[in-house]
């Protein structure tokens, strides 16, 4: 029987008013820490080792406490594409260590750079159950969706 084992990828597309080289740069240097976590935050540290197999790690201090992001670069194609893993840090302790993958595609477009972000391999139902988060009770979410 068919069941949906992996979640669907999340895809977001934006036109950014900046040259592609510059957009690539802010994704692939410690400047990443300046914008990647929305809301009030203070950058504690950020490291970027831009090579396939290299890691990035960002530590922020936010209103909700310290937040850590990190992962490994899987593909670097300057200035068109970056593929990296995304490891859930201590901000979501019940999923800490879970790995997903983010692809950032950058294309030149009139007015700037077309950024397409694809986040795939997010935790699935099985993982959620493993962590004791049952989905009993309300079907509100489904009702909203259908």
């Amino acid at each position, binding site marked *: *029987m*068919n*069941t*949906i*084992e*992996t*979640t*669907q*990828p*999340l895809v*977001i597309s*934006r036109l*950014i*008013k*900046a*040259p592609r*080289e*510059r*957009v690539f*740069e*802010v994704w692939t*240097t410690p*400047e990443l820490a*300046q*914008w*990647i*976590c*929305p*809301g009030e935050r203070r950058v504690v540290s950020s490291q970027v080792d831009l090579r396939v197999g290299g890691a990035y790690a960002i530590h922020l201090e936010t209103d909700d406490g310290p937040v850590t992001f990190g992962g490994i670069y899987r593909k670097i194609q300057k200035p068109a594409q970056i593929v990296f893993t995304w490891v859930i840090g201590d901000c979501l302790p019940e999923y800490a260590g879970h790995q997903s993958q983010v692809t950032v595609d950058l294309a030149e477009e009139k007015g700037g750079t077309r*950024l397409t*972000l694809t*986040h*795939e*391999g*997010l*935790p*699935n*139902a099985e993982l*959620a159950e493993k962590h004791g988060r049952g*989905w009993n009770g309300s*079907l509100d*979410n*489904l*009702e909203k*969706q*259908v």
Partner: protein
Amino acid sequence: MVKRSEAALDLTFSALADPTRRSILKSLSHGEWRVTDLAEPFAMSLPAVSKHVSVLEKAGLLKRSRLGREHYLKLEAAPMRQAATWIEHYRKFWEGSLDELARYLESNPVSPTSNQKPKKGKKA
């Protein structure tokens, strides 16, 4: 793996792309139903409803069990809900981050690193 998930996604979306099937799922969200009862509110023949049910079943959105001659249907919404929750979580996160990125680039149009080569002319 990606292909598999995309195929599953296609199935889900095509299954959800029909108003009758969405109504069926909604009915099932209130509990288990017999196919015959499910057909009632829709001005539709039993075979027509059964066809919709099969599509939903193939997409993994409902489960069928048999008791004698009767088929009982049950919603299998957990994977979908779980997916929706995570997607929502990260959508919010990335939308916020990309807003921030746009703002950041507006106020920092040029690279801050001094050893960076001067900006090249735009490629034609």
